[in-house]
């Protein structure tokens, strides 16, 4: 975009704008959580909403995640559209019972009589030097729960578009915000925000022919950088940003892998029982005869998220991705 209105905006600003636009358009949209009002959220993502829409629309709740999500269920039952903030990934665990036993199932339980149009915003992932319980990647838990959508943006534009779509969704969405990308910037026109992105579509961020990097959220920039570095080695990598883990865009992913014949799944949550296993299995089931090598995974280690002084060893970086790509070539040659 080259219009004068375009200027750098952060992902946090795009998310805030998405909530503001949704609240302005739809009086049933309510933002709630700990510190979301006066403080504007610990990451300032809800900055200004309480001032603009009042404390009834952007509410500082008591500090209790199960209570926050549980009351949101009741509010949704009465026709509101709650947008709930869980301050940090691991702080959401007390709310798991409400999420799994009620939010995810209420539509099904009531034969469609009680949809749960709730958006649960969860800042997730590491790389910001957070102490314990501030850097978890919990997406596998959410993915394993039928009834939930699980989405995660990697760009400023998607942050806006996907959050708008999530708030508009009649189904509950776990909206994972890669917190280390909160301050990533992009040229973005707040006057003409990006289109609302339908949930469930992956996007090819970079086209290539040698192999596909399948990734999402905070690992997307890592893969983009890896792809650039790989070009120097003569590998032309394609990068697929999933954007939505549930539903999963088999079509885009498999079309890419069938083109390239090789795939690496990259994410920072643990590998064992993690999202990569599901993704690799799906790709293998659907693209086996197109594959030149096994589908590899580059993930965080199978350890509790490490203390901040060691997290760089845990997080999959460019080198680890490139090493995997190198192994793909080797497997293909043998």
């Amino acid at each position, binding site marked *: 975009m080259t219009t004068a209105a375009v200027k750098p905006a952060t992902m946090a600003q795009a998310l805030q704008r998405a909530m503001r636009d949704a609240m302005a358009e739809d009086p049933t949209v309510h933002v709630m959580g700990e510190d979301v009002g006066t403080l504007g959220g610990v990451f300032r993502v809800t900055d200004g909403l309480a001032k603009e829409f009042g404390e009834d629309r952007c509410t500082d709740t008591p500090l209790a995640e199960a209570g926050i999500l549980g009351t949101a269920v009741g*509010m949704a039952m009465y026709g509101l559209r709650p947008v709930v903030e869980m301050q940090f990934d691991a702080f959401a665990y007390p709310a798991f*019972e409400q999420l799994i036993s009620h939010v995810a199932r209420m539509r099904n*339980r009531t034969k469609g009589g*009680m949809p749960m149009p709730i958006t649960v915003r969860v800042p997730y992932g590491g790389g910001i030097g957070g102490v314990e319980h501030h850097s978890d990647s919990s997406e596998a838990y959410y993915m394993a729960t039928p009834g939930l959508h699980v989405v995660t943006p990697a760009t400023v534009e998607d942050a806006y578009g996907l959050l708008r779509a999530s708030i508009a969704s009649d*189904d509950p969405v776990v909206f994972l915000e890669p917190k280390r990308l909160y301050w990533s910037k992009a040229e973005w026109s707040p006057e003409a925000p990006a289109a609302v992105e339908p949930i469930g579509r992956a996007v090819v961020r970079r086209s290539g022919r040698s192999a596909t990097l399948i990734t999402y959220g905070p690992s997307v920039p890592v893969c983009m950088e890896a792809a650039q570095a790989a070009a120097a080695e003569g590998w032309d990598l394609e990068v697929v940003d999933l954007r939505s883990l*549930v*539903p999963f865009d*088999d079509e885009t992913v498999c079309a890419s892998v069938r083109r390239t014949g090789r795939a690496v799944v990259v994410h920072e949550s643990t590998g064992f029982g993690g999202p990569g296993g599901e993704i690799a299995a799906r790709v293998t089931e659907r693209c086996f005869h197109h594959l030149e090598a096994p589908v590899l995974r580059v993930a965080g280690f199978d350890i509790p998220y490490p203390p901040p002084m060691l997290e760089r060893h845990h997080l999959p970086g460019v080198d680890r991705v490139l090493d995997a790509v190198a192994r793909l070539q080797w497997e293909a040659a043998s």
Partner: protein
Amino acid sequence: MTVQELPGSAAAAYRPTPPPAWQPRTDPAPLLPDPEPYRVLGTEAAASADPELLLRLYAELVRGRRYNAQATALTKQGRLAVYPSSTGQEACEVGAALALEERDWLFPSYRDTLAAVARGLDPVQALTLLRGDWHTGYDPHEHRVAPLCTPLATQLPHAVGLAHAARLKGDDVVALAMIGDGGTSEGDFHEALNFAAVWNAPVVFLVQNNGFAISVPLAKQTAAPSLAHKAVGYGMPGRLVDGNDAVAVHEVLGQAVARARRGGGPTLIEAVTYRMDAHTNADDATRYRADSEVETWRAHDPIQLLERELTERGLLDDGTRQAAAQAAETMAADLRERMNADPVLDPMDLFEHVYARQTTQLREQAALLRAELDAEEEAR
């Protein structure tokens, strides 16, 4: 730890002062429950109770007792997977449900089928969950009855949220959330009461203290003076009521509902009652309680209590008694007949209502099941 002695005369002059931010927020005295559970039947107050209400409560109690017996029989016939009977607790179920207006909402636990039926829910639909053909099956909006909640206390925050939302919209709707004594130990109980009080939400919490959480007696559940005492810590009034006295339950609930409706905020009510049957048909109550205890409570039966009052006031003749029994029998016969018919289920419904719009993944799985069903059909 020892308190550090201040030297010399300073020690004598030292007086502790409260920290700067400390100030009493609420006088706890009006929030405290009376030590004795409130009763109407058998007291002078009963004389002024509305005859029409007494007769209505009576008819509902009799019907409720019959419903419990019929549903329990259906478990023995394999028609219900499980049934948590509320025999002995009918006064709580009925007294509470009848205290609500039509526009109000009920948030029942799994044992509160009778309350749901008293609000007009079809007796068969109220058993769908327990029969096992769908998890709830009924439309919660039709009678403003939330799904019978199986996890403990998790429906309490829902009640708070709904009541809060109604208030934000300007509707004078009250939510009643029902729970057992065991459920008060759950975290969601605490969070719901705290949210309700902070938001001044129009909610009434009714704890049916029936003595046991499956097999664990109240003494092992809590060290609180009473469950109603817990209210004080949240800044809402706590009330104790005789849970076998339908008139008292109805009155106390009615007051709490009215208070909530006029913006007075939430109330916690503990109804002291007893579960005459086992936890469910799958439980053996003789392992954890004495027959003598059960017999003590049998002498305090909610239907008998009300019958005595009605008889003394000349409101219960044989005709009225028979009419109530007959209505209950008709309900039971209808329930029996309809429950004995096999429900017609479409397995393809499994994929409906998971999401508003089916995902590709679910469409693929639906196609697989369709093919399997077709193959079954062909093989027949």
